[in-house]
């Protein structure tokens, strides 16, 4: 955590980047964002016998 009481993130802030410019970001920067967006929380196999959504992780 930073001393200014802010938390740095790994995500580019694209709000101020004109949308038409987004595809021209470097392939690396765009690729990193895409990899992040594609990430799924690992889904374990369903457990037989549990009766609650709570058991799924």
């Amino acid at each position: 955590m930073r001393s200014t009481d802010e938390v740095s993130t790994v995500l580019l802030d694209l709000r101020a980047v004109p949308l038409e410019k987004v595809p021209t970001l470097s392939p690396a920067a765009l690729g990193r964002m895409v990899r992040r967006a594609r990430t799924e929380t690992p889904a374990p196999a369903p457990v037989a016998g549990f009766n609650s959504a709570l058991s799924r992780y």
Partner: protein
Amino acid sequence: MSRPPVPRLSQFILKVHSRCDLACDHCYVYEGPDQSWHGRPVAMPDEVITRTVQRIAEYARSSRLGTVQVVLHGGEPLLAGRPRLYRIATGLRSALRGVCGLDLMIHTNGVILDEKFCEFFAEQGIRIGISIDGDRAANDRHRRYADGRSSYDRVLRAIGLLRTARFRHLYAGLLCTIDVTNDPVRVYQALMQLEPPQIDFLLPHATWDHPPARGPGADAEYADWLIAIYQQWLAEGRPAQIRTFDSILSLLGGGPSFTEALGLDPAHVLVIETDGSYEQVDSLKVAFEGAPGTGTNVFADPIDAAARHPGVVARQQGQAGLGQTCQACPVVTTCGGGLYTHRYRGASGFDNPSVYCTDLFKLISHVSRRPPGRPDAVAGTPAHVLSGPGFRSLAGGFGGTAALTELIETQRSLVRGLLGAVYQKATNSPAVSASVQASLRRAWSVLADLDRQHPAALAATLRHPYLRAWAVRCLDRLDAATAGDAEGAGDAEAAGDDRPLPADLGHLGAIAATAAIRARAAAGVTVPVLGGAVHLPALGRLVLGAPPGRWPDEEEPGTATISVISNAVIIRVGDDCWTLGLTGLLAGVPDLTASPGNARVAGWQPVRVLSAPGISLPLDDIDPYRDCHEWPVAPRLSDTEFARWDHTFAAAWQLIQRDHAAYAPALAAGLAALVPVGPGQPGRDVSAAARQAFGAVAAARPSDPVTLALLLIHEFQHVKLGAVLDVCDLYDPADGRFFHAPWEDDRLFHAPWREDKNQLESLLQGAYAHLAVTDFWRVRRQTAAGPAASEAASRFELCRAHSREAIKMLANSGSLTPLGVAFVAEMRHSAWPRPERIG
């Protein structure tokens, strides 16, 4: 003088095939002084496999190793064939079961890597590294067939397979041998376009007797080459792991090295040749004939015998094992004398600095003077930051309106990035026709105009949870198409539909139309007809009836056009046309007018909204991309069923506001859609959240509002944590990707609510959900009466015990980043409220 310790080896390179289908002129196996490959079996025989597996298991047991890494290598290991690789993989797993974990990899040139190999590796949990030297020109400088043909297209196809959704988890990284005559930044960019999780830039193997190629007067051009890439890598926010740079940065900070080419850590590698010989690191083949040999083998000797070989022991001595020049060097702890092989000189053996000494000194000095700053500075574009109070509030299990707004804003960036990536990839893909690309350009132009002139309308549109799921699906299918998978048909079939790729891509037009409608801005786009309907995400769909007289096998029109004019939306399908009043459409009560002479009928189905004091929540039972949850989505609800939902939701929301008020602000700010799913088994409540659908909760309608309140609170915990994980590394991703196989037990955790073991992120998700569920039952045991109160009390005790145990496991995992430690500390504060807090 004490005897040096026996080295603890943990990485075994198995030479499963001693020949190669390429004839790269920089190969250290075939082009160096050691030509021992001539006399070895072409492929590792079964008796060698059996003995090798036994030896590794025997050594792992006696050395009490937690994990061994086995790399299937060559020559070209794929030439060994799937049956032989199967025997090795299953033999290792069987022998090491109950002994230690196994991280199994293969390193290949990729030219014959096909889908069948990938399916086999997926079954066996074998990660894949591929050699490629950059773009076509750079790669073909050395990596060619014996007849001079290029290997580039075949390698690219193999990497394309690893980039598809099916096999991405197997993609370990790329290995690039440096040639300083190639442009470094072009090489870097060509490799980064392949989206590798890791890149290894290798100095060409050389010795003082056979020094590396250098230009006249140049003394550190390998450093200059790497420094150019380092600067680019930093400027782009270190988008992939680069082992050389990560190791230098780690070593400079007092951490470990990730390569034996740097640092003073003892070497831990042993090579086993196709004839069963134990050998030292195989790069020694460039030193002299027989240099890697140990005189031991799997039939006669345990691995300990090879580990005691003087050549292996010599690489365990740390700084004391280096020559005087190195010992006096200011960067010795980072450099470590470089790769052992590179120190060789015929007259003095290995007691020399590296032949790359000037390069290593310059590179390490440069990196130490220019460490990474903020991780995400890309050409002046800053990274998102979260406020400290908001982060702590979320970490404690809650998160108010401000904290959720910050998460919403990060998702907005994420979706903007995804839209740009889909557009960029589709309009540059040979698998997408010119006419589809033209439609995409029109839609993109509309979106870009709206971004300039009506940013709020676009932002509201991009909040729809299923845009991210749509974009990820498109990218997966485009990757599959690039890999030659017939327009990504495989992925579509796996997803349970036969929607063609152009229809998926065309949804960009529907997104643009929705944004234009929200902005009340004139626009015209082409959109797909999906499942007999024209969709406007988050607004509704026009369901088309069949035209009278149509033959059953006559094809439906594939596209429609949507025009947004002053106060109306005109949808045209073939020769038929309908008009929707714009104001009514935005209010959810549109008036639909069919043009005279239409051949078919159509009806508008709006996205209906659940409402209760303080919240309006779209119930989305029509979005074509909503089926991304754990459970199959329900079809469009009848008005009666919607009314039941509305009634149950209103009561549930009242309960949340009254009894669980700490969760209400986050829900009100962040909940963007409720998606009905099919009912579960009798007595089982069904609900889900999806990482790629921020703000959406899917559920089957429970029988009572108390259960719905619990499901909403529970699932929204996953929504919040998923969004935090999208932007913050709470645990060390290297744990799962590079140093430990995620399917191996030693990096799995036994959540107290499950009988099997799971990955750290699953444990974190479960613990975070349990925090809120515990809190729910804590309140409920006091507000309920009779048996319901007793049941709530017992559930509270169980959930509290589970969440506390899980939080302790997380805190003790050793895998959390400093930010993760801070996050889990806040979870701990919530799980042990004062004055019960543990020490």
